[in-house]
């Protein structure tokens, strides 16, 4: 199949590649760019493991063609850490609050939560739950993911995080 040349910015770096028109963005990211932190869990846009941030929106990269991302600015989980290489507030929150177990949904969950906190820096618990409802986790039951996002929200806003009593 004839290939198309695509260029985009991924985690701050200009990248390019030759892809078939039908190549899914997630495959371009994982196979061509070898950024394997973005995962595939369902291929039907239900689970959110493939979530990346494109031009300021959370996008499930398993149902978008690589050619559709031409010229866009993408951030994947590999671009989430702080500039100095330390864990971001969200990454730290997931670890501190035990917001992950097998780790397979985690990249998509963190990338989505990153955008959620940009949209709403101090979300309530229901807002967090609705905000991550496009991402499925099979391990944690979400409760600690909610706490992880609250932890990050507090840290970003410079306030003390208070864990809600069970």
């Amino acid at each position, binding site marked *: *199949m004839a290939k198309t040349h695509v260029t985009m910015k991924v985690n701050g770096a200009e990248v390019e590649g030759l892809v*078939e028109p*039908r*190549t899914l963005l997630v*495959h371009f990211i*994982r*196979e061509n760019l*070898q*950024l*394997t*932190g*973005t*995962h*595939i*869990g*369902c*291929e*039907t846009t*239900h*689970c959110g*493991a493939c979530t990346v941030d494109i031009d300021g929106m959370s996008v499930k990269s398993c149902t978008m063609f690589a050619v559709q991302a031409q010229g866009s600015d993408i951030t*994947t*989980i*590999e671009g*989430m*850490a702080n500039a100095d290489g330390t*864990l971001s507030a969200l*990454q*730290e929150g*997931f*670890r*501190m609050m*035990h917001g*992950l*177990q*097998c*780790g*397979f*949904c*985690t*990249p998509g969950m*963190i990338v989505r939560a990153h955008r959620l906190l940009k949209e709403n820096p101090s979300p309530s618990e229901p807002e967090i*739950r*609705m905000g*991550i*409802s*496009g*991402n*499925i*986790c*099979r*391990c*944690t*039951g*979400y*409760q*600690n*993911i*909610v706490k992880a996002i609250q932890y990050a929200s507090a840290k970003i806003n410079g306030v003390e995080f208070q864990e809600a009593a*069970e």
Partner: protein
Amino acid sequence: MNDLTPTREQRTAALEGMGCKRKRVEDIRFTQGRGNYVDDVKLPGMLHGDFVRSPHPHARVKKIDDSAALKVPGVLAVITAETLKTVNLAWMPTLAGDVQMVLADGKVLFQNQEVAFVVATDRYAADDGINAVIVEYEPLPPLVDPFKAMNADSPVLREDLVGKMSGAHGPRKHDNHIFEWTVGDKELTDAAFNKAEVKIKELISYHRTHPSPLETCQCVCSFDKIKGELTIYGTFQAPHVIRTVVALIAKLPEHKIHVIAPDIGGGFGNKVGAYPGYICAAVASIVTGKPVKWVEDRIENLTATSFARDYHMTTEIAATKEGKVTGLRVHVLADHGAFDACADPSKWPAGFFNIVTGSYDFPTAHLAVDGVYTNKAPGGVAYRCSFRVTEAAYCIERAMDILAQKLNMDPAELRLKNFIKPEQFPYHSALGWEYDSGDYHTAMRKMMEATGYAALRKEQAEKRAAFARGETRDIMGLGISFFTEIVGAGPSKNCDILGIAMFDSCEIRMHPTGAGIARVGSKSQGQGHETTWAQIIATEIGIPADNIMVEEGNTDTAPYGLGTYGSRSTPVAGAAIAMAARKIKAKAQMIAAYKLEVHEDDLEFDIDGFRVRGLQEKFMSMKDICWAAYNSVPPGMEPGLEAVSYYDPPNMTYPFGAYLCVMDIDVDTGVYKVRRFYALDDCGTRINPMIIEGQVHGGLTEAFAIAMGQEIRYDEVGNVVTGSFMDFFMPTAVETPHWETDFTVTPSPHHPIGAKGVGESPNVGGVPAFSNAVNDAFSFLGATHIQMPHDFWRNWKAAKDLGAVA
């Protein structure tokens, strides 16, 4: 001592040992997208394989034409059963003593069965190839209803077994019959029923569902022709077992098979068995001389690899008028699909279903399980439960509620009246188990107090009165579950897989500078073993957990272990870890005695080193002992500090718990709301409370999914109608309730550190709590038992059938 000398508390805290909410070491890589899962494995020249699957549930395969497929750019090979026959791999043995087609051999027996394997340069080309393979089928009548499997006029599914009236587990009664398994004293049980004052009988079904970890099953197989070695990267919960299975069926020398299970994206029982994809990828690698990757998509995962449950349990309890149980009789019709591919210990065709007497002192019981074939996917895996324990717990917990209803007695009171008493442990159950320990009354009362159970019942009575007066359309249910699990398979006297005893193992090597590596036969799929195993060692030998690296999943380096499923890691591997650590400690004590110039018996272990009894200043830290082990051991002692332990447990462990679900249901819409869910777990000694709570949250969420909607459903002609996350209920953060966790601690008397295992308890105990809540809500309207899953529509239908909705 000066002010800088750490206190005992500080020294203990520095170890981050058992009981500590240690943050997980795995998370550093997982939160940065640096995990290494199977699909991340990329080898030079790697090809991709994918399946042509059957659209029919039951059909003869007349012809497979691959000529067009082989012309598709990128397609290199199409493997069929005929190809596999040349290497004697068209069929493979299952862990349950049956055989299973790897690729359709003359017939297909379930929809989406593997028919041919297309090998291509990339996954897109493989898909193109699949579309170009032309398969000619002759449809046959499907058998979908397990209750019709043994009818005289039912179609015979397994032509390979026709006339074989005996299987791996004894006589077969019909060509579609797999086994009958009976346990208990039939005569005594019949007698108990004959003189019973009160009896209940109900068909309690536990529907077919699926573990569906977020990462599907996948592998990369790479055969090196020059060396004659096969390397398999795979999503394996039991890597060593896979190596042995491959050695046995592919006739390769076992030392030339390297099985590597890297990071695994959840397992929940889905990744225990061997699937056609593994065999085909291995054969494809041998045929093409290139590494071959096989990655299941979600539809394939849901419809072809490993369903769970599908048990239809006719349950009877005999009791006195006062509510003392006198007998239990259960008959199970088990729908195994097209092949019996249960991943149970070999001698247990229905797993440990004979834990069905639960937490209650039944003087007698009898159990019979009939396994049958149908035109459905094979499996029967333990979806986050010890083998068939979830089915058993659901069966008895639902039945106890039905009995309470019949006796007009509070279900909590009925349970308290019939619990095995603390002084009865070790308790020998009527169906053959020896329960190691428990204190059920304390746990139950703690639950009732913590939830305000009496007040909730009062509120329910008021709500019911208000409903009767037409003031509300909401009904309220209280779902109690008091489960006893049986985990930690298992003792070699009764547990093996393909003849290999179900021990587990650990090897610890301490390095000169006081750091070390522990290799373990278990395999984490998210349980956090890299964190918790180090905590056990930290407490045992006094080296900080941060200085212990834990490695699992590589069969070349890890000692042989039976893997992680059935909550066996902590009961079995956890014990092996403690025992290996104690060997290290014993040698360390000899070294310390030599260095401190005292007799070994004059030393006592003190947090992080050995101290001469009564001489505060004569102390040698474990760190210093590690160094000494490499330069100044006692004369005659071998240098080094390492140990291996293979642990054959003397008994299973029996975690238990008391759960309560408070639910409100709107009868007009069937919409339910879980108002409160309280889970008290007793898993014995707690290694890492943070991880335990996380396990409980996750298990409860899976239980919630199963009880309230998650189902693998077939229509009447054998089409699977729940093949994606659109149709197969996957709760999101919005639907998932808030979980309250609590605990009691009753250590296992036979486990080195007293731990019992917890990962599966919440799934086992959660399902009956949800279902009992729904049934309890509807009970005052006349319902006795409403089948799961309790989705909105079924709730509305129940209300309608009971006359509560016009």
